[in-house]
């Protein structure tokens, strides 16, 4: 009875119902899109740092993070290879051999990081290949070909096709030296990386450095990179004693903290937003209820108890809240989904800020069902919590007060 009366009431005062409905719906949609933007930009930050080169997880010998020298290498890369092959949740992996070397061209000599990679395997989960700006990417059978960062190329004043000398220490500490031809130049937008990195086909570099079947570390990506932490834990349980797996959260600790700080500020902003929405909905509920105070007085006169009134009003507001929040969630989700597929593009953004690692003109949005449900639920809870005071307030009026209320 109370339920059908609630529905009748909702339908009776259409304009009020509609206002509350629209407000709550917009708030929900707004919130969902806002969070999607925030998460999108964080995702972008992670992507630009993690996916360009670092990768979602590393496996290295214990101690390598502290002292990245030849004493802390993976001595039997084949063993790790076999190990990773047996893990169904590992989607991709590739060994890297990183070493410090001198690159020299005529008068200029620059110390840089030379990394041996397996070009075909690398291209499937880092952005090395897509960051190519000139020349071409490495191939698995390349020998004296080097793929070099744009700023490093600038420092050495070299271009595609030029020859440069590399001198380093091979694994037995004998001098490893070779001449390479610049095959391609890349630019990821990460300045430090672009100004000090160069890549060589690992098979060939191994022959120069005597590092066959050795690796500095393995980069690993998973079938679901969001669960990287969990998989890393699993890997750590199974790995041979002297090896460790590290997730990007450990590898890029500063970045993770930065994102946390940014999220913290995001939450502060959102809480301001929440305060406003809370009040707005409460005010709307309040006004809505008070607009009908005479009717409520009448119902009380007819024998409704305050509890009946409470249930009645609660039902009414609950129905509106439920409908508006779910509708808002759907609208928000659709907008978010649309923006993820067709992101907002500000032309020239990448051009202007390419020095700082912004490599696309689009403003990223992240669609995530769980987040959307969570967001909608928060607004719903906000909605419900904003009902109590107005309902409490109206039940404090006596029947005659209510009936005479003008």
């Amino acid at each position, binding site marked *: 009875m109370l339920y059908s009366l609630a529905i009748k009431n909702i339908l009776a005062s259409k*304009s*009020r119902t509609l*206002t*509350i409905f629209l*407000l709550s719906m*917009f*708030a929900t949609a*707004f919130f969902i899109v*806002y969070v999607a933007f925030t998460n999108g930009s964080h995702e972008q930050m992670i992507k630009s740092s993690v996916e360009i080169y670092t990768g979602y997880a590393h496996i290295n010998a214990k101690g390598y993070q502290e002292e990245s020298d030849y004493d802390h290498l993976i001595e039997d890369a084949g063993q790790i290879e076999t190990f990773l092959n047996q893990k169904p949740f590992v989607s991709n992996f590739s060994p890297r051999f990183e070493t410090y070397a001198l690159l020299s061209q005529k008068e200029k000599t620059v110390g840089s990081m030379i990394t041996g990679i397996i070009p075909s395997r690398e291209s499937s989960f880092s952005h090395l290949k897509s960051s190519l700006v000139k020349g071409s990417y490495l191939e698995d059978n390349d020998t004296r070909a080097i793929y070099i960062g744009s700023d490093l190329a600038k420092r050495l004043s070299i271009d595609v096709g030029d020859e440069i000398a590399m001198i380093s220490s091979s694994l037995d500490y004998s001098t490893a030296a070779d001449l390479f031809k610049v095959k391609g130049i890349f630019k990821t937008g990460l300045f430090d990386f672009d100004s000090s990195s160069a890549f060589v086909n690992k098979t060939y570099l191994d022959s120069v450095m005597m590092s066959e079947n050795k690796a500095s570390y393995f980069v690993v990506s998973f079938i679901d990179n969001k669960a990287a932490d969990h998989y890393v834990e699993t890997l750590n349980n199974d790995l041979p004693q002297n090896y460790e797996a590290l997730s990007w959260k450990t590898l890029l*600790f*500063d*970045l*993770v*903290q*930065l*994102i*946390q*700080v940014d999220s*913290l*500020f995001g939450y*502060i*902003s959102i*809480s*301001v*937003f929440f*305060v*406003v*929405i809370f*009040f*707005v909905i*409460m*005010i*709307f509920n*309040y*006004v*809505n209820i*008070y*607009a009908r105070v005479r009717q409520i007085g009448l119902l009380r006169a007819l024998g409704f108890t305050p509890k009946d009134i409470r249930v009645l009003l609660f039902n009414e507001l609950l129905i509106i809240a439920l409908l508006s929040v779910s509708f808002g969630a759907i609208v928000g989700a659709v907008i978010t989904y649309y923006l993820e597929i067709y992101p907002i593009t500000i032309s020239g953004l990448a051009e202007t*800020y390419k*020095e*700082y690692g912004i490599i696309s003109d689009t403003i990223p949005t992240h669609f995530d069902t769980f987040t959307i449900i969570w967001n909608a639920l928060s607004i719903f809870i906000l909605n419900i919590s904003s009902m109590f005071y107005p309902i409490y*307030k109206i039940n404090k009026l006596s029947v005659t007060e209510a009936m005479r209320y*003008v």
Partner: protein
Amino acid sequence: MYKIAFDLAWKSLIRRKTRTLMVIMMIALSLSGLLFLQGLYDGMVSHMINTSIRSDSGEISLYAKQYRLEKTIDYHIDDPRAIKAYLHQSKEIDAYAIRLSGEGLVATAHKSLGATLKGVRLEDERRFGDFDTFLFQGKFDFGPKKQEALIGFKLAEKLKVTTGNRLVFTAQDASGEINAISFRISGIIKSGNLAVDEGSVFVSIETMEQFLALPNSATQIALRIKDKSQVNSIQSMLQKKFSTLDVLRWDELYPLLIEMRDMMDIFNWLSYAIVFAVAALGIFGVILMSILERMREFSIMMAIGTPYKNIRYQVISEAFIMAIAGYIIGAILGLGFLVYTASSGIDLRYYQAGLESFGLNAILYADIRYHYFFQAFASVFFATSLSILWPLHVLKKIKPIEIIQGKML
């Protein structure tokens, strides 16, 4: 007649205390939150800009052409005395700092790292950017024999050194010779400028001139401009005057900071827009509802001859009384937050690594600027104005007699 309307508006608000207070609280709380956020963000950005200007670039820096690109002492300013004399008499320039820097290697018995050795005059730096306030540990002094150095705190951490320890700095001098020189650490600098904190060692410029075999030279002359609004014109004036040098503004030297400031501005603007869009919706709803609810009353007022503009004025007054009350409370509350955060700061030491990697202190301080309050007022005013348009439109279209006779209720 406006007095009557205003009186009615005032009484309406007093009579409906709860909802009036709710609206005022909504405006006040959201406003104070926004003011707080804005101050905090501005505080962060201006802190970074400020420390970069104070610890390095000034508003304008002069370099030898090519130096910015090559960063070697081959491209130094020879004999800066003429420039110095000019700067000294120039009225636009508040302070200047002449520096001679060289890239090299800083070593202890255990470890060595690449770093920049900066020859400076502490007195000049103090005048230039209160550089002494960056001192984190030790004393702000190069010692009687100019054999002591100040070191960035991150570099000190990486080298595992502290005050009193000795460092050996190795670098190539002007003739290509690799020389070494040792310093004792007299103080540790924590400036918030990453380049300084992570990779700089400050020594006396006389020692540096000797060490690099570059007597009477400089790699950078940084200037503090008195009138910040004149920076661009002074830059072009200086560029004309010293055509053989690069004359660069701080924002050209630290473009990332500008980008960050722009981002923060966009973010602030967006927050304002979103929050006030919702707040406007709130005010709108309250006004609309209170009009719908009082339709009969307004109708009767109109029927007995109250002019429409009187009623309009009443509605406008109601909205703006709430808005202004909300603004005042919000502004006071926000100012309170800001004053507290500007003096005591917010302790985010938990996120220290992230913040410091960004060149920020783990304790954030807010900025307080007049324009926040004007901007906030404008926002409240705008949101309120916008939110009463539709309710007034509804009011204007009513046919009093129909409402009195119950056709619309």
